[in-house]
């Protein structure tokens, strides 16, 4: 099949095979895409993954349940604690551990803080891919504030290993709620600037509107999830469809756009950031200031034999985990369902026929993270 082949077509001189990555500033890590270029138009695109394969699932089978949590952090490294939640939820389900209400709310706050952090990194790198330098620095400073809040409580910036079975490892810092409220005020001011620099910029309009259109049917057929799916007009969000933790207690909307183009994906991520701010505002008010942060969990985690699938809506989409237990203190099998991995499936669909410059915009709008894709 010609679209999958890497070899130049014999006798065809107008096509140039270009190897984009694994070291390329716009591939967000170590993606390699082999492109067939006809001038600036892409005729073939074959993504290659596996440059960051580090045996997550196999190593996790050789670790006890509490140890696995530290490893799940390293998957989607941009969004920290979000990765720990599906595994923690699955094991809690298997063991029937009760999670106190306060712990649920703290978890949800961290979850949404990391969603903001992840979308900020996306915004900065996407604008860097489009050629603007300054938004990258602005977003990284805002992210730095979030990481400061997280570090004060959890002890680490990016990969804090903070959730545990039955709640969170330690109580939040006394300043946590005040810091978060201050940060949200700051963030609301900055979002105005980001709107000016990203969503309203005519150059961004020119680069993204009508580029890389993903139809609703195609998106569903390829198993796409998260902002990419919602930008194609499907209002599917695990937070609403299968609520977990404190999401039933808070009000928020699922922003969708019918367009399915790159600009729609940009727009949906922006609206998600507004929704995150809204959720966090509610949780700052709702969360009890004192109380248990951790439910009763057995000293040795030994789930009964059986299996359990739990999914959460992380910054990139549905992040699921299937835990199979054989009754020992180590999982028999841990299978992750990565959102970025599924979203990457549409790369050849969207690339073929687009301009080369468009492919950069499209790739940044998918926001892949290779720790989770290659695992």
């Amino acid at each position, binding site marked *: 099949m010609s679209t999958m082949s890497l070899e130049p077509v014999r006798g065809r001189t107008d096509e140039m095979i270009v190897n984009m990555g*694994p*070291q*390329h*500033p716009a591939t967000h*890590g*170590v993606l390699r895409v082999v492109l067939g270029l006809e001038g600036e138009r892409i005729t073939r695109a074959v993504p290659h993954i*596996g*440059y*960051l*394969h*580090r*045996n997550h699932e*196999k*190593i996790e089978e*050789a670790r006890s349940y509490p140890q696995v949590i*530290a*490893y799940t952090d*390293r998957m989607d*490294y*941009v969004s920290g604690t979000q990765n720990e939640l599906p595994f923690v939820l699955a094991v809690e389900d298997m063991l029937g551990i009760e999670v106190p209400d306060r712990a649920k709310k703290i978890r949800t706050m961290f979850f949404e803080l990391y969603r903001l952090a992840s979308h900020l*990194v996306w915004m900065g790198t996407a604008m860097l891919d489009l050629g603007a330098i300054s938004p990258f*620095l602005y977003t*990284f*400073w805002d*992210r*730095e504030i979030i990481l400061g809040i997280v570090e004060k409580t959890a002890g680490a*910036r*990016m*990969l804090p290993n903070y959730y545990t079975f039955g709640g969170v490892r330690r109580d939040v810092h006394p300043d946590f709620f005040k810091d978060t409220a201050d940060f949200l005020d700051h963030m609301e001011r900055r979002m105005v600037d980001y709107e000016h620099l990203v969503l309203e910029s005519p150059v961004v309009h020119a680069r993204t509107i009508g580029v890389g259109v993903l139809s609703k049917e195609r998106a569903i057929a390829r198993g796409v999830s998260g902002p990419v799916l919602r930008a194609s007009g499907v209002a599917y969000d695990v937070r609403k469809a299968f609520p977990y933790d404190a999401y039933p207690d808070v009000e928020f909307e699922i922003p969708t756009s019918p367009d399915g183009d790159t600009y729609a994906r940009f727009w949906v991520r922006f609206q998600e950031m507004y929704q995150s701010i809204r959720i966090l505002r509610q949780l700052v008010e709702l969360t009890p200031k004192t109380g248990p942060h951790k439910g009763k969990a057995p000293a040795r985690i030994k789930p009964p034999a059986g299996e359990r699938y739990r999914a959460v809506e992380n910054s990139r989409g549905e992040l699921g985990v299937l835990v199979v237990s054989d009754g020992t203190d180590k999982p028999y099998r841990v299978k992750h369902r990565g959102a970025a991995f599924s979203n990457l499936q549409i790369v050849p669909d969207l690339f073929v026929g687009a301009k080369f410059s468009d492919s950069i915009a499209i790739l940044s709008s998918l926001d892949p993270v*290779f*720790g989770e894709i290659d695992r």
Partner: protein
Amino acid sequence: MGLLGSDERPRDIILGTLDDLINMARSRSMWPLTFGIACCAIEMMATWDPKIDADRFGMFFRNTPRQADVMIVSGTVNKKLAKRLRRLYDQMAEPKWVISMGACANQGGPFRQGYSVVEGVDKIVPVDVYIPGCPPRPEALLQALLLLRDKIADRELRYQKPREIPADYDVLAEPGKDGRLPVL
């Protein structure tokens, strides 16, 4: 690193002074290669953010290996990537330095038991400075960059670089072509 890339340490006073001057310039204008691999890459980007701002020390990213001086290996290197990494190192113009950032790049870190992970990037490229951490703080990376600056600028330290370039043929060779660096 001696004058114009030679390994010999100049004995002459004039040449020695020139050598010092050029190495001072080198140490104060280290341009890293934009090559993010994994988790550490995000902290590597954060080192250039307003809070840390490594640009204060005259460092900014170059995308092409030809114009870069420092390669920051920021993440797990597996056997598929190792060949590309080595190739990037070979493409960099002399003089060049390597910083190994984070546990994975140092010795495989938490993933060192995996079948695909290279246990330490110093098996394929000569490393000048190692940073522990998973991932290291941006300040730690800046510290490493400054240690590298001192190493380049210092008369005694700069000839300490291991000049024999390591090549773990198990990692680098393509299957079936033993003893030869791969043609990629």
